[in-house]
Structures are given as structure tokens and as C-alpha cells.
């Protein structure tokens, strides 16, 4: 038995999916969070059902790769029933897809989601009337709170086993415009607007989207976010790092660091310390805060506010979703470029997305620059980063002139995030670090201990020396930079070991830390991102993007070195 979730963007398919399958699909209060399908087995009164979450689409004949995925999936997999998730507050839009689905020869159940929101808006929806008119079951649902899920699945199971009833042919229209009008009539029949909404959304938008207050609010919100991440991280980093350093020197003096075993043991401790003391303290509050901003629905508002400004700076308007996702991780950011129609736009958006400092690079910025130079310098690195991205965007749009019309983005209603979802989402991403990245950090540290012991690291350092020399960095930074391509956190974790110090200020000047960080922020994306780039754009573009990032990183590093020469000492 296989059920497929189909619906428009941001109607809550992934929320429903996660409610029954555990947190497996990324969710967010904006369009285009899901770009590929996710499958999971769920148990329904003793039966095992394969549930699949498909990307949101307004039509079955969508033009971008994420939308095309939907029709491809229904045609290539045995789908026993379609659960058509519809946002009850946007019924007119949702019914267009429902009408289109009627011509697909599969059992259909309509899940009328966000019923709580609809009643808050004063909308009364005549479900039974819709059921009679469409000839398919219509079930009420509040996916975010888990209401109506069991009934929905039992009904779907029942429908899947029954024969498909003959469709009312007057509903199966081929013409898009006719379908649009039909959906409008249908919605007019079954939705009645009660008390006109007293919308706090409009009032909040009056402030948050205001030409002056909106930008002020944006700066304040981001500043608070930044301060919280920094405050929390610093609170944890210093004492935990001190503990690990004590252990490391104790163990070192006990075993002796001049043997291979001693080097490896210290390397192991350094690798563990890197994960616990340097990365996690910043990663957890950052991902937690990002989840809240995502679920509230603030991110599309940033896009709305910034689009005009970004166009002026030469940045592609539609690249904003990948851009914002990039701050969490570049991999979903590159994947989300599938919501763009033109390949050209996807190349530009991917290139800019990989320049966005992800959570891994955040740990370098915070662990090095914020920790030693102060949070204002970290903020400066972020602002400088945006400036460089804008400049790159401007150059790229000149080189690859675009003819796309620009931003079309649904502005979702504000939603109060549920703690459960925010915690689950944060854990979903933190777990990814613990399972995939942390072992790599430890292995990297062990490998470095090995290289140091046999003095092999000098060869790698020599290979990278042209770059490190140009940037005025010690030769020992070569190995951490190379290993940083595996995982960006490695650049920081291995740096301690490579320089042979516990306190960076003993080996690096403030300017060197700044230059190193800026270079790490821009140069070659990590292995996971590279493979995402290859999947989305192909080998050649992947190599071209990587080469470009090295050029950008080098120029940015040299610029900072030159500038810092006058400002810092």
C-alpha cells in the first residue's frame, strides 16, 4: 500500500508527513522547502503503509524540476491513493489542483488542513457539500497539532480499497482558465466568510514590512539572534575547552607526546573537543533560532523587504530562498534552486548559495573571530560576506544576462511555532552533525596527528604555501585549509593541532585570524555541497563554481589583509 501526499506549496504536507513518520522531512513556513520526495513506512492498524511526501506544486504540469517530480512520481510508482492536502484558508487556490487531480485515475482523499486557522479567520467550510460535489471524501485536519490524522488515514485506506467512483465529467476540464473559474465557483459555494477578520497579521506586517520600521526591525531581530548565539556559545565554549585542554595536557604528559601513540591520543581528544566545545555550543542555538524564524514565517518577509535592495545590488530576486537556507546548510540551499525554472538562474543561485556562510562556517567565525576579536568583528565578517555575494551576483548577472521576471513568492500567514516542531527540527539538523560530521572531525584530527608525527604535513603545507604566503598566514594553516574541504569545521578544529597551541592568540595575530576566517568562509564548498552541486548542475559547473570560489576567497582575503594593515595595528 502506498499513499502519496500532494498539495500546493506551504499547505502542510511535510508537517503531516512528520507527524506520522517522525521528523524526516524539512519543514518551514515558506514555499519550496520540499524539493524532492521523502518516503517512510507507517503503521496503520496492523498494516504497513508506504507514505511519500512530494514537493508542493500548483499544477500537475509544473515547469520547474521540483514540480515535475510530482507527475513523474505518480506515473512511475504504484500509488494506491492520493492524499490531496489543501490549505483551508486558501481553498480557491487549492481546489484548482484538486480538480486537476480528479482526472488522475487514482483514489483521492482531500485533507482539509489548517482548519483551526480557517475558523480563526471566520471562514466556515461546508465539507459535506464539497464531498458531494467532488465525489471524493473530504477530511478535516490540523496537521500541526495532530488532529484528524488517524481518521484521515483510515478513510484513505478505505478509499484505496474501494473501486474508484466515476468522476463527474463536468469537473474534469482540460483548460486551465476554465478550471480556475470552476475552482472559484466551487469555493464560493462552500466557503462562507463570517465575521470579517480582525487581522493582527496586517497590523504586524504594517510594522515588519514598513519601509523604515521594517528594516529597523530586521536589524534588531538579526542582532538579537546574533547576540543570543554568541552569548550562549561563549558561555559554553570557554569552560568546556578549558576542561579538554587540561585533559589533553594531563594525558600528554602522562603518555608523552613524542610517541605516535601519544600524538594519536592527543589528536583524538582534540577531535572530540572540537565537536563538543567549539561547534555544538554555537550550532545548537543557531539552528534553534533559525527554526523559529522559519516556522513563524519571517523569512519570506525578509525576502519581500530585501528584494528591491538586492536587485539594486545586482542580486537575483528569486535566489532569496536558497540564499536564506544557505545560512543553515549549503546542501539544501543548492537543492532548493530546483524551484527556479531556468538553468542559468539555477547556476547563479547555486553559486551565490555556496558563498553563504553555513552553520559549519559559523563555528569558525564565532570560535575564532568572535571569541578573540569580539562579536562586532564577527558581524563585520557577515556583512562583508553579503557585500561580496552581492558583488558576485552583479558580475554573474552581467555575464549571464537573465530575462526572468523576478520574484513571485507567496507570503504565508504568521504561525506560532510549536515547541515540538522546533525542537525536532533542531535535533534533525544537530543529529546530522553528530552522525556525519563529528566522526569526520575526529578522523581528521587523528590523521593530522599521524601526518605531524611522520612530518608529512609539511608537504601538504608546501602545496598550499602559495595561497597561505599571499594571505600572510603561517605555513601550518595549509593542512587545516585542505581538510576544511571535507568539513568546514575541520579548518578550525585542526588549526589548534596544526599550530600546536591551545590558544590561537599565541600563534596568530588578530589580522591573521580575520584573514584566515574570511578565506575559509569563501573558498571551495565542503564535500557534501560539492556533490549536491554535481547532482544539480553537473561536473563542469561544479568545477567552475569551485574555481570561482577560490578566486573570490583569495581576493577577499587579500582585500581584508590590505585593509587590516591600516585598521588593525
Amino acid at each position, binding site marked *: 500500500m502506498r499513499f502519496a501526499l500532494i498539495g500546493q506549496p506551504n499547505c502542510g504536507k511535510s508537517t503531516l508527513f512528520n507527524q506520522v513518520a517522525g521528523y524526516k522531512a524539512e519543514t518551514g513556513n515558506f514555499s519550496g522547502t520540499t524539493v524532492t520526495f521523502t518516503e517512510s513506512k507507517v503503521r496503520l492498524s496492523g498494516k504497513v503503509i508506504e507514505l511519500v511526501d512530494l514537493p508542493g506544486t500548483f499544477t500537475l504540469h509544473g515547469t520547474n524540476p521540483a514540480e515535475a517530480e510530482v507527475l513523474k512520481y505518480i506515473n512511475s510508482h504504484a500509488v494506491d491513493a492520493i492524499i490531496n492536502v489543501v490549505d483551508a484558508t486558501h481553498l*480557491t487556490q487549492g481546489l484548482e489542483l484538486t480538480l486537476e487531480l480528479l482526472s488522475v485515475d487514482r483514489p483521492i482523499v482531500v485533507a482539509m488542513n489548517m482548519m483551526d486557522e480557517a475558523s480563526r479567520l471566520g471562514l466556515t467550510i461546508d465539507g459535506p457539500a464539497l464531498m458531494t460535489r467532488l465525489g471524493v471524501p473530504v477530511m478535516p485536519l490540523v496537521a500541526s497539532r495532530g488532529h484528524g490524522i488517524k481518521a484521515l488515514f483510515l478513510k484513505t485506506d478505505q478509499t484505496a480499497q474501494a473501486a474508484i467512483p466515476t468522476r463527474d465529467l463536468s469537473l474534469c476540464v482540460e483548460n486551465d482558465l476554465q478550471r480556475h473559474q470552476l475552482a472559484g465557483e466551487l469555493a464560493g459555494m462552500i466557503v462562507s466568510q463570517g465575521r470579517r477578520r480582525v487581522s493582527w497579521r496586517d497590523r504586524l506586517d504594517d510594522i515588519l514590512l514598513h519601509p523604515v520600521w521594517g528594516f529597523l526591525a530586521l536589524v534588531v531581530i538579526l542582532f538579537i539572534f546574533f547576540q543570543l548565539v554568541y552569548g550562549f556559545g561563549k558561555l559554553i565554549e570557554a569552560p568546556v575547552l578549558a576542561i579538554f585542554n587540561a585533559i589533553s595536557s594531563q594525558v600528554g604528559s602522562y603518555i608523552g607526546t613524542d610517541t605516535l601513540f601519544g600524538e594519536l591520543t592527543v589528536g583524538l581528544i582534540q577531535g572530540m573537543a572540537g565537536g563538543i566545545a567549539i561547534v555544538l555550543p554555537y550550532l545548537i542555538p543557531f539552528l534553534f533560532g533559525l527554526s523559529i524564524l522559519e516556522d513563524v514565517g519571517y523569512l519570506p518577509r525578509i525576502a519581500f523587504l*530585501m528584494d528591491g*535592495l538586492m536587485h539594486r545590488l545586482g542580486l537575483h530576486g528569486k535566489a532569496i530562498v536558497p540564499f536564506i537556507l544557505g545560512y543553515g546548510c549549503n546542501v539544501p540551499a543548492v537543492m532548493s534552486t530546483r524551484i527556479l525554472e531556468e538553468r542559468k538562474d539555477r547556476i547563479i543561485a547555486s553559486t551565490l548559495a555556496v558563498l553563504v556562510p553555513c552553520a559549519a562556517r559559523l563555528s569558525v567565525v564565532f570560535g575564532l573571530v568572535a571569541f578573540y576579536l569580539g562579536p562586532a568583528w564577527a558581524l563585520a565578517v557577515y556583512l562583508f560576506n553579503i557585500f561580496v555575494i552581492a558583488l558576485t551576483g552583479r558580475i554573474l548577472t552581467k555575464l549571464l544576462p537573465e530575462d526572468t521576471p523576478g520574484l513571485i513568492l507567496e507570503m504565508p500567514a504568521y504561525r506560532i511555532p510549536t515547541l515540538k516542531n522546533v525542537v525536532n527540527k533542531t535535533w534533525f539538523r544537530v543529529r546530522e552533525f553528530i552522525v556525519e560530521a563529528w566522526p569526520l572531525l575526529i578522523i581528521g584530527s587523528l590523521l593530522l596527528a599521524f601526518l605531524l608525527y611522520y612530518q608529512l604535513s609539511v608537504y601538504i603545507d608546501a602545496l598550499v604555501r602559495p595561497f597561505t604566503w599571499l594571505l600572510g598566514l603561517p605555513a601550518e594553516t595549509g593542512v587545516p585549509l585542505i581538510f576544511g574541504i571535507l568539513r568546514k569545521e575541520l579548518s578550525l578544529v585542526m588549526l589548534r593541532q596544526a599550530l600546536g597551541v591551545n590558544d590561537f592568540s599565541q600563534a596568530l595575530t588578530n589580522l591573521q585570524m580575520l584573514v584566515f576566517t574570511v578565506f575559509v568562509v569563501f573558498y571551495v564548498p565542503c564535500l557534501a555541497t560539492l556533490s549536491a552541486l554535481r547532482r544539480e548542475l553537473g561536473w563542469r559547473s561544479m568545477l567552475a563554481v569551485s574555481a570561482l570560489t577560490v578566486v573570490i576567497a583569495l581576493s577577499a582575503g587579500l582585500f581584508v589583509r590590505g585593509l587590516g594593515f591600516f585598521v588593525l595595528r
Partner: protein
Amino acid sequence: MFKVASKEIIPMMKHGISRLTDVEKGKQVKITSFEGGNGIMTKLNRFGIYPGDLARVVRHAPFQGPILLEIRGMEIALGMGIASHIMVEVAACDLP
């Protein structure tokens, strides 16, 4: 001369047709047509926007940014590029 000129102007004024980008905040409009070929049309149709639809201009973003349009209970931000291709008829008086 005068006759020719007025002939050109009068139909425009009668229907009150203008570009969406020129419509003030808070005005109720009816979408009459899309300029600029099928590409624009398909893109807007995908979001459920068709000629004949009633809409309201909720607000304009700063720095010539997007226009926020409320259409069938949904709010959609449209960048200047695409909004300038949408021709609308402004209602004589605002609906409540």
C-alpha cells in the same frame, strides 16, 4: 486632430486601465490582461492568477521592491519585473 487624440485617450480613461505597478496601496483592482507573452502568463497561472480576478494591492516594498497582492485570500509578492506586465482596472470606489 483633437478628435483623433481624444479617441485614443477616452477608452483608456473609461476603463481606468493601468499597470499594476502604478496602483496605489490599498486599491481594489480587477486584472484585465498580461503583457509580455505566454511565459509571464504561465508563471502567473501557476500561482492561480488569471485575468478577471479581483485583487487588492496590500503594500509596496521599499526601494522599488515587490508589490504585495491579496488575491483570493492569499498574499503574493510580485517583483517589479513581473508586476509591470500585469494590466489592471481600478474600481471606481473601494469595496468594503
